[in-house]
């Protein structure tokens, strides 16, 4: 540890800490900057994070300086303030200042820092500005405006260092320098939208998001991406019940500052046209909308003391609490515990990579083994179903579409579907129960590392849809169980008490980086 004095405060830092990070801690806010990014190499080109270090003849950039014992640093002196102000003015002299039509307005480094350090009177005439190309579509998801670019090189470094695809470069020199795509290429790597996230200005914008919503109208909810088993930490940006985009949230233990482009699309199904908005009951051969009392009545008629449940499947996209409660419910309804399956494996497999995308597209498969659920694949699953009698309960999965042999196995059986969309399984069901999609409820996911992370409710459920755990708990109560959980915190305590892997864990209090239970960490290090 080394002692450093920053703005009169003496603090201790680990040797080798970047002075930039040290200043952020000491000041409670970052130094002005464009090019510095904690997960990229140091470029040192925006020149904004200049600080005064006693004993050094000139101002020095904090991002390329490591803390040293006894260093005395000033970040708020007049000299430092003046330098930042002048360099900001340099950043703006050739900028088009087209904020009213810029999608970045409201979350723009140039705007924000100008408000802090501003020189509001421009000393450069519009006619004197260097003009460059605007609205260039440089890939399937990204649009480039070269005029707005401050040449911080973050996007170039991202493609060089993180994806190692090298599509972008800075071409030409001096004030003619501009970001561009290498000849014959386009920005089409699987992580291209991260360049939009790290672009501090409106030079790179998202084709999907641009002009959909002014960012200051958006509310953000911290959550977890449901796209695969990695469990990237995300921010759900939404307004009035509509999700507009997902952005990565930095978690060095899981996803760094990044997420994949595919994961960003996972908000779309939330607003799919075939979302289930009310219970559906089969009447005269067709599914028709029903009220909840009618749905409960139908359920009671299909499954009960005289008609035990035959088989139950749940998808590993449901939360830890939901799967635990569902397992318990299925047993209470008469399905032998062995008959409860984790759902069809095939539906959740894709191509993975060595960065973030996991081949396992299910966000919560790791919790199946914690809960003792088996996952028979393909023909095995069908055989297991055939070996039972009674109704088949399907939760969160669409095995009619995804699982081979399923249709034959359930032919002539009564199917009850609990889910969010009117897919092939719902169409084949007698009773369809509308539940909440991932962004409409709170819940825990266990990623491929065995890390428990909290996904949070961002928007409201559509129509008459129910919160999953409440529906399951209500059904459990209806079976005669008297101590079904009445709140989510209670449910979590109930889960922790039943799962050996979670011994001694309080699921209601998770650290920001998520929690790998000691029992899991000791057993295996997890993937990654």
């Amino acid at each position, binding site marked *: 540890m080394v002692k450093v004095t920053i703005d009169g405060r003496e603090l201790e830092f680990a040797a080798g800490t970047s002075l930039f990070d040290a200043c952020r801690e000491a000041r409670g806010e970052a130094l002005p900057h464009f090019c510095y990014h904690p997960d990229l190499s*140091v*470029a*040192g*080109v*925006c*020149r*904004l994070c*200049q600080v005064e270090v006693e004993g050094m003849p*000139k*101002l020095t*950039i904090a991002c*390329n300086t490591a803390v040293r014992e006894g260093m005395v640093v000033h970040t708020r002196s007049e000299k430092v303030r003046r*330098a930042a102000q*002048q*360099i900001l*003015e*340099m*950043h703006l*002299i*050739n900028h088009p200042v087209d904020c009213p039509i810029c999608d970045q307005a409201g979350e723009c480094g140039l705007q924000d820092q100008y408000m802090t350090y501003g020189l509001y009177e421009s*000393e*450069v005439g519009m006619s*004197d500005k*260097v003009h460059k190309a605007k609205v260039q579509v440089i890939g399937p998801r990204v649009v480039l405006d070269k005029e707005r670019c*401050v*040449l911080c090189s973050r996007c170039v470094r991202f493609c060089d260092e993180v994806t190692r695809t090298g599509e972008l470069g*800075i071409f*030409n*020199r*001096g*004030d*003619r*320098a501009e970001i561009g795509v290498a000849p014959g290429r386009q920005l089409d790597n699987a992580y291209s939208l991260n360049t939009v996230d790290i672009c501090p200005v409106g030079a790179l914008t998202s084709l999907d998001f641009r002009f959909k919503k002014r960012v200051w109208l958006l509310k953000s909810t911290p959550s977890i991406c449901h796209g695969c088993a990695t469990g990237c930490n995300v921010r759900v940006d939404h307004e009035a019940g509509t999700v507009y985009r997902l952005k990565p949230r930095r978690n060095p233990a899981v996803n760094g500052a990044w997420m994949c482009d595919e994961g960003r699309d996972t908000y779309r199904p939330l607003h799919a046209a075939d979302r289930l908005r009310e219970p559906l009951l089969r009447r005269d051969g067709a599914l028709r909308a029903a009220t909840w009392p009618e749905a409960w009545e139908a359920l009671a008629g299909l499954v009960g003391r005289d008609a035990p449940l035959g088989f139950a499947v749940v998808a590993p996209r449901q939360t830890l609490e939901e799967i635990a409660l569902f397992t318990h419910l299925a047993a209470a309804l008469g399905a032998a515990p062995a008959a409860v399956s984790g759902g069809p494996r095939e539906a959740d497999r894709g191509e993975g990579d060595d960065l973030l995308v996991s081949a396992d597209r299910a966000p919560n498969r790791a919790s199946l083994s914690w809960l003792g659920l088996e996952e028979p694949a393909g023909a095995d699953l069908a055989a297991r179903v055939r070996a039972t009698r009674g109704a088949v309960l399907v939760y969160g999965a669409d095995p009619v579409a995804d699982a081979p042999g399923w249709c034959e196995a359930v032919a002539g059986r009564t199917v009850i579907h609990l889910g969010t969309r009117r897919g092939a399984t719902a169409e084949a069901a007698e009773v369809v129960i509308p539940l909440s999609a991932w962004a409409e409820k709170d819940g825990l996911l266990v990623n491929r590392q065995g890390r428990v992370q909290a996904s949070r409710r961002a928007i409201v459920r559509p129509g008459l849809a129910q919160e999953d755990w409440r529906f399951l708990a209500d059904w459990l109560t209806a079976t005669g169980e008297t101590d079904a959980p009445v709140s989510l915190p209670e449910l979590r305590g109930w889960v922790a008490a039943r799962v050996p892997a979670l011994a001694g864990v309080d699921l209601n209090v998770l650290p920001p980086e998520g929690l790998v239970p000691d029992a899991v960490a000791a057993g295996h290090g997890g993937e990654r």
Partner: protein
Amino acid sequence: MNQDQYRILSRRFDRRDGHRLAAYEADGGYRALRRAVGELGAVAVREEVKASGLRGRGGAGFPAGVKWGFVPQGAETVYFMVNADESEPGTFKDRFLLDYDPHAVIEGSAISSFAVGAKLCVIYIRGEFGWLIDRVQKAVDEAYAAGYLGRGAFGGAYELEMIVHKGAGAYICGEETGLINSVTGLKGQPNIKPPFPAVSGFLGKPTIVNNVETVAAVPWILEHGATAYRKFGTEKSPGTKLFSVSGPVRRPGVHEIPLGLPFREFFDDWLGGMADGEELKAVIVGGSSVPVLTAAEAMEVALDYESLATAGTMLGSGGMIIIPQRCDMVELIQVLMHFYWDESCGQCTPCREGTGWLHKIVQRLRRGEGAPEDLALLEKVCEGMAGLTICPLADAAVMPMRSFLQRFRPEFEALAAGRRATEPDSRWAREIRS
């Protein structure tokens, strides 16, 4: 005064065959290398050069021996690079060395490489110097054939591969990390420091970059000793220095003088004063990047690092520009600001934006569209550039800009008041531009 007694570096400049190996050897060439490798060893060579006080001749004036000492002890792979990217306006001394005495550069490079433990030496020559690249390559080929370079040179006592590398047209590649990036095949732009190249340079290995004139002095120093070298020059600025002089003086061209020589003496005796009908107005002593001096100031200075620093300017590269009375200073600064705007690599915001802004304001003044506030604006832009960038290019633009403004303010004020620039004889400024 016998000016020839100071000719260490330029002693073969007026020989028609000075660039050939035979002539160089006949003058005792490659004896110093043989002695360095055979008798002295690397440590003694480093000590001798350090003792000579030889300072880097590229412009910064950093002691060469000290720079060599920055290579971490025990480094396995070290590279040596010779900076022949001479492109500062007004500077043309290295090209004389490469043209008339390439073997002195090669021998100096070989000794320097040996001294720092490098087995690969790259001579990085400005791309526009096409004919010099051929000439130096021929000389390198001769040195290989004669057994001074390559594997098994001097019976296996040392080995050195020497590569002549052609630049691609950027002034900034004269900055040592820009040069290293250019050799690596990357975009020619400087790196942030630390790390310094002596610790982590070409391919991440310790790399020493020295100017052509610096290495060319090394064979002489080894042959005659540090003490003999120190007989020239001053205590802190030992030795001789090449000055490339342009402008309407009687004897422009490259002159070698002992450091510390009073400018007045240099001007009168070496340069022969102004050409007929010309009157001295100002002097840029060390290349376009250093502050300009008025004629009166120039007449008071001595030509060494310390005296010039005291006078508020720098020795720089020794690219001396003699400015006559008829020259319009605003026009001249416009030429220079165009140069720095054109050559800024564009990495650092203050330089990328500042050089262009300065150029635009000066252009505006010259067009007669300026305003009195423009002078303060020029100063403000300079303040926002000076000392705030990765490399000194921004400072190199600011120093002439500020000094022109300070010393020749009335010429700027006349334009800023809205008076259209008189169209003076701009032939002279055009010559500088070309």
